[in-house]
């Protein structure tokens, strides 16, 4: 029942939010998303360390076709639900008061939270697909209505790109469904059984169908071409949603659906996808290095991070998977913080151009400190949240193949170079004309950034707090294949 309550509550707040007087729109959205966070925190604290799904609700939906409304939470999904409910209030809180059409904006954000939670708790292939697609609608409108000047072309490209992957996944799901034993069913266990019953050749083809969907969402090189444009042109909150939470849908899809369903498919193709992921890490890192726009730089750095996560997951060992999980959390938290800082800088100076900034530290020491901490998290300094994840991921990839591990390990160096360079050029040095009148963080901005800083340090110091929750589920996943 708790899951149903979460879904219904977020959905109804999204609807009610449309009709709240504009003055209260912000407060309403923030408080309701905060309530969702508090409730999911309660679920997290009381969550038993067990490999099984908890709070399972299973009711028939389209009986004749074996489609059930089946949801449940295990150690992997609770962390992602937590990530969603933790970041959404912060993202809502970060919306500027001057935003046009605020009610629709908040409602879309809340609606998106509902869809994202739905993706992470679905235990039925059809339900998963529905939530997966529903999540696309609010983000499309967020980018279309509040995006930058080239938004129409870019958001349509984004939508068609991701829908292409989704539809291929749908075909794959139907194919698997038709091979489920006995009465056909979309239940996750039946789909696992169906996938495993197929031969290596068929699994391999289906593997690429699913890879297309998840690889586009994450995105993995060379399916990433929609991402930098979309991140750059989307409004700050849209970018935060996309990079902070939405791309985790793709990674989660790999762990929860694709690999357990198609183990032979992975075995056949792991060499290719591993090298695609690693190639993406290096490629995106190098491109990030040459970027002049802060948002674009972060977009490419996000591709590099996600590439490493994907590599760890395709290695499919305990370190790789656990590293992937913890890195999903820390990447989500870091990237939201960084994009928000870029938004703050842009709102004060009117530019994101790295070259024309500088000297912000002199004017805004608070911002400089917060930026430094989050940035160090992103470059995986020990005792920040990036470290345990990258360490586990690289050791996972290393275990799979030495050379791939060594190449993927370069990301730490490349990442440090471009992030520190951006920090140095924008925050340190002499002030420019644009940053002369820079004001420090307001109380509201601190309200967003301080929780993020706390999490950066918390995950860095005791990652075990989160790793121990997902470990039983991961062990079960590994033993099942």
């Amino acid at each position, binding site marked *: 029942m708790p899951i149903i309550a979460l879904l219904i509550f977020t959905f109804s707040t999204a609807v009610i939010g449309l009709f709240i007087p504009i003055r209260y729109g912000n407060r309403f959205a923030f408080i309701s998303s905060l309530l969702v966070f508090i409730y999911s925190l309660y679920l997290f604290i009381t969550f038993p360390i067990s490999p099984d799904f908890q709070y399972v609700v299973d009711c028939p939906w389209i009986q004749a076709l074996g489609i059930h409304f089946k949801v449940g939470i295990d150690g992997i999904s609770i962390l992602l639900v937590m990530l969603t409910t933790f970041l959404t209030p912060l993202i809502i809180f970060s919306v500027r008061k001057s935003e046009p059409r605020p009610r629709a904006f908040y409602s879309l954000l809340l609606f998106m939270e509902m869809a994202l939670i739905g993706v992470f708790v679905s235990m039925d292939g059809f339900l998963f697909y529905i939530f997966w697609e529903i999540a696309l609608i609010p983000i499309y409108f967020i980018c279309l209505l509040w995006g930058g000047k080239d938004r*129409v072309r870019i958001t*349509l490209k984004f939508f068609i790109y991701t829908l292409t992957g989704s539809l291929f996944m*749908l075909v794959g799901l139907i194919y698997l469904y038709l091979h489920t034993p006995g009465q056909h069913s979309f239940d996750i266990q039946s789909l696992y059984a169906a996938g495993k019953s197929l031969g290596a050749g068929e699994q391999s083809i289906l593997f690429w169908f699913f890879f297309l969907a998840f690889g586009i969402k994450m995105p993995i090189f060379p399916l990433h071409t929609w991402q930098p444009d979309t991140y750059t042109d989307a409004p700050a909150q849209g970018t935060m949603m996309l990079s902070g939470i939405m791309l985790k849908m793709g990674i989660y899809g790999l762990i929860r659906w694709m690999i357990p369903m198609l183990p032979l498919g992975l075995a056949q193709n792991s060499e290719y996808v591993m090298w695609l992921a690693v190639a993406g890490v290096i490629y995106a890192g190098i491109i990030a290095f040459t970027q002049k726009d802060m948002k674009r730089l972060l977009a490419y750095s996000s591709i590099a991070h996600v590439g490493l996560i994907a590599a760890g997951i395709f290695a499919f060992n305990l370190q790789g998977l656990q590293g992937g999980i913890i890195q999903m959390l820390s990447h989500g938290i870091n990237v939201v913080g960084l994009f928000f800082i870029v938004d703050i800088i842009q709102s004060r100076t009117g530019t994101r151009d790295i070259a024309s900034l500088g000297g912000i530290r002199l004017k805004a020491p608070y911002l400089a400190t917060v930026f430094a901490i989050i940035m160090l998290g992103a470059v995986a300094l020990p005792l920040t949240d990036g470290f345990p994840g990258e360490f586990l991921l690289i050791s996972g990839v290393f275990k799979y193949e030495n050379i791939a591990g060594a190449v993927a390990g370069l990301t730490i160096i490349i990442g440090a170079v471009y992030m520190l360079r951006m920090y140095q050029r924008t925050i340190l040095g002499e002030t420019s004309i644009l940053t002369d009148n820079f004001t420090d963080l307001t109380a509201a901005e601190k309200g967003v950034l301080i929780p993020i800083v706390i999490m950066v340090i918390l995950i860095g110091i005791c990652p075990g707090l989160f790793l121990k929750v997902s470990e039983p589920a991961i062990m079960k996943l590994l033993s099942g294949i």
Partner: protein
Amino acid sequence: MNTLIILSILGVITLFAEIFRFRKGLFPLILIGLATAFAFTAMEYNHPQVYFGMMNFDNYAVVFSCSILIIAFLWFIMAKNYFLQETSVTDHFALIIFSLVGAVVMVSFTNLTMLFLGIEILSVSVYVLAASDKANILSNESGFKYFLMGSFATGFLLFGITLIYGVTGSFDLSTIQQHLSTSNQPGLALAGVLLLLVGLSFKSSLAPFHFWAPDVYEGAPTTVTTYMATVVKTAAFAAFFRLFSTCFAGIAGHWTDVLWWMVVLTLFIGNVSAVRQKSLKRMLAYSSIAHAGYIAIAIVSMSAASASAIFFYTFTYSISSISAFTILFIVSRHKGSEDILAFQGIGKANPLLSFAMTVAVLSLAGIPPTAGFFAKYYIFFNAINNGNTLLVLLAVIAALIGIYYYFRVIIAMYTKPEQQLVPIPTTLLHRIVLVITTILTILFGLFPNLVLQFI
């Protein structure tokens, strides 16, 4: 059978309304009449009965008749104002009701002569309606074109029926079926099947027999276009499937390959041509061709689930289309243009209109949680189940092209704010139609069982 009787009486009464001058009461009378017909049809559910060896009101016929009546009911609410402003309202309403008689015959025939009669009753009424905007040259062209092309198709149909009769010696579906499944098939019978395929493809606008559709849809008054895209299409596909699933299922190997290629052509011609359209009406016409392609996938992959797949698709497509056409009607009337550009800025000025349009367009594009998604899903599922995976992959690509032009409407509504935001006035009846269709689109998307359980 009761449906036919009630509808025929209703049609005659409607004609008399002109003479006895009770035009004001006509509209409620028609709605009551349709509701009565619906009730009597629904009572025949699960009580299949054959009438005179000509018609069989099995569940297939009952369910399709009911959906046609529901769509017609919504259509009348939508079209009332338009026709009341014209002088010959009774003629138009009577024609529509008579064409409904034809539609009901088309979904319930068990004899080729009834198929022919049904198609003719339906078509002749719609030929006249297409040309009903007498002052508009495009409407005249539309009616004339539809008539010429339609008669041409009827010729094919009749020729096919003749050949089949020549081989089997009967018009009765079950006799033909037995005959075709037992003996060795002469080329004559196969030629007959192909001619029938051509004739019915004309009526349901499958490529390469779709050329009439864009011009006819664009020229006809928007309300009549709506009727053609919804009721006529539903009836055409119901008849198509009824004929080919009973009579010619035994020799499916001879015509599915042909239809397979026709479906691929239809999907790509419909979707690709729609991309290039500036006029929303013409775009919807091409999209309706594309939708015919999706529906025909269920005929290619003939199975037990095909009937419900076609039913769900035509029903939900009709509902979304009524919504989209109603908004097109309102907007084009107000702005005097059917261009997509005419929709600029209504996202701000008319939230209800733009929300309903968004839902309708998402449904037509097949995005969850709307009914259009489940309709496509069910068609795809049925096709993969019957080994037509390649066709589904092609349809998926076609659907992606579809996103591009459907979203142009959404983009136009929400992105380009107009200088002065004057809300477009809407009538209460139109608002009712939009609310009903929008709710149904989402409801059937979330709970397709509500519809599927009946067939």
